[in-house]
């Protein structure tokens, strides 16, 4: 896909292809479903975000508050914390989780049966349900019976209750998220590596490159588009991170470990402030769309 794409205007490029009418008819069911279940709710949510609405019956005009929900949102300290935590998630994904996945892919890309067994083991966390993962880590990090606390006490240290500290609880979430998703990225990279021409490696060996140089100069450029895709998933996934927060910390303690979506759930839906929750949703939507379009335009231009 490295060929330079022809830059026709969208409508012209569509109509220039044969059978475009048939294509439209086949695409219609998907477009209708997409409009019904995605576009319409987004428009409804944006509409409701200017009301002080509790979710029961339709919003009434006396509850219209304009951009008040948005102003409250941006001034809300817990939301600011949630933005910070989400930023931490993105950073950890990009600088710890992805390199870890890449390192494992480099180690386990071969065909030895040991590699295949470990690939399966490292991919298993990805298959585990998020709620189950959260519950497991809730007990791993527990101050009394958790393994970290027990080990620390073996060595004569104090019991460690990571999830009881409002400032450190997010670390528990970051560790659980890294454990859960690095296997997915590892598999993406392994698949990408299978597509690299073997002769490139042979040529590099003949030129005297060692394993590290082969990795840097053959493997990484070869899977560059896979890496760009993997970063894309990591960023969007981090922006919408929710499932692990609920069983691990519930956004606490003292609301210190919320992410944007968990904030939406606990402060919008559970408190029956649906209008406020919709405002969070609108902000998140704008951020995600900007990130997705910006990333594709800037980074994935030629993929």
């Amino acid at each position, binding site marked *: 896909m490295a060929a330079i794409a022809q830059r026709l205007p969208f409508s012209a490029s569509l109509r220039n292809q044969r059978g475009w009418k048939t294509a439209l008819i086949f695409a219609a069911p998907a477009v209708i479903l997409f409009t019904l279940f995605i576009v319409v709710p987004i428009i409804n949510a944006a509409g409701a975000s200017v009301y002080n609405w509790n979710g029961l*019956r339709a919003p009434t005009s006396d509850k219209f508050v304009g951009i008040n929900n948005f102003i409250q949102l941006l001034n809300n300290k817990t939301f600011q914390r949630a933005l910070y935590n989400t930023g931490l998630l993105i950073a950890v994904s990009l600088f710890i989780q992805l390199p870890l996945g890449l390192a494992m892919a480099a180690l386990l890309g071969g065909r030895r049966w040991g590699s295949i067994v470990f690939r399966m083991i490292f991919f298993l966390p990805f298959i585990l349900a998020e709620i189950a993962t959260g519950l497991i880590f809730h007990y791993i990090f527990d101050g*009394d019976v958790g393994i970290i606390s027990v080990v620390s006490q073996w060595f004569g240290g104090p019991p460690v209750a990571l999830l*009881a500290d409002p400032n450190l609880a997010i670390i528990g979430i970051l560790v659980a998220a890294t454990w859960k998703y690095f296997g997915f990225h590892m598999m993406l990279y392994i698949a990408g590596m299978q597509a690299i021409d073997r002769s490139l490696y042979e040529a590099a060996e003949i030129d005297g490159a060692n394993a590290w140089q082969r990795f840097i100069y053959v493997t990484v450029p070869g899977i560059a588009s896979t890496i760009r895709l993997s970063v894309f998933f990591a960023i969007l996934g981090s922006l919408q991170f929710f499932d692990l927060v609920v069983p691990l910390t519930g956004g*606490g*303690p003292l609301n210190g470990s919320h992410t944007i979506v968990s904030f939406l759930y606990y402060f919008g839906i559970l408190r029956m402030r649906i209008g406020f929750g919709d405002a969070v949703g609108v902000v998140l939507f704008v951020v995600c769309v900007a990130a997705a379009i910006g990333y594709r335009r800037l980074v994935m231009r030629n993929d």
Partner: protein
Amino acid sequence: MRATILGGLALAASLLASTAATYADDVTVRMLFEGDTKAYIDIVQKAADTFMSQNPGVKIVLMPMENEALKAKLLTALQSSDAPDIYTSWGGGMMQAHDQAGYLADLSADKDALGKVIVPSAISAFQVDGKQVGAADSFSLVSLYANKPLLAKAGVSEDELKTWDGFKGAVAKLRAAGITPVITGGKDEWPVHFYLGYLLLREGGPTIIADLKKNGFNQPAFIKAAQDLVDFGKLNPFQDGWLSKTWPDSAGQFGDGEGAMYLMGNWIVAQEQQDAKDGKGVAESDLAVLPFPSGFPGGKGTTETLGGIAGYEVNAKAPPAAAKFLEFFLSREQQKPVAEAGLQIPSAIGSDQDLKDPVMKAIAQQISASPMHQNFLDQDLGPDVGKVINDVATALAAGTMTPEDAAKALQEAMDNSK
């Protein structure tokens, strides 16, 4: 093509007619209730079967659901065409929100019939501006549960726990003896709000919550109660890592004897035994059940109690049979198995005599002797302010919030929900 369309229309019409015929025969009453335990679901089913046999033409459809799942489902269920006719409710602000949205029936005509089967406070708890919208089926009470052997080890007598100063002194004595004084569930936050609730009642008296709703949170009684909680938190009374413990975690800790006291609702008796590592927990004979301390100089409260008043709301669209079934189900005879099994303290007149468990009996007596039974604050104040009060209580106890900031946060939430 036309034949197919006509054929399709005919089929649809006949199906519609057949379903209409079914609806004309049977009146259906749909009941969505909190069914966490199988024993309770069986009792409800039996009551429904008995009612149906006595009232042919009425069909009762039961939908048991777990607590949190029910709360989440109710919001959308009420707005669907299959809305339940009777559903579990904890009263308070949520009930008012339902009434404002026009979802609740006016059962004022049934007040007398209800008055024959349940106690007066069970009727008044489910009124909105004087309009009867449902009825309470059970009471629960928050008390101070104490592990007697652990208290004895630290040389603390139960008499000391009767006053607030004595209670604080007991906390210090237990710490000195190397025993965790109090267990609580900080992650879930609502167990901590019991402290704030009782402190408000003791400092502000029985009308405090109504005062706060009417005149705002920036009142001396609130600031004093919040300060009491901050001072209590400074004594380091809770178990290590209490901010990360859920209610079941903490119940297990209490059952394992890891702490001497727990301020909690009467359901702790069964829960701590179930969640303890050995499955047996603290035996009832080793459990002291005490009222929340009094002795607050300048405080307006006496022996008011904090606890739950749970029951059922009736949908505005429900058939008259729904209210009739509710009266039937809430009667002493139908609630007898509930009382005998100690599942709840029923609101039926005379039900406290059916209670077999001594702890439950004592609690029922405390409730009926109480000058005023205040509903859980996180229910009474509604879903938004209620969650904020849980947040605020936990932050006050953890020492990360001042009483003034707490009043401000609550007032903001209150203003938002108007």
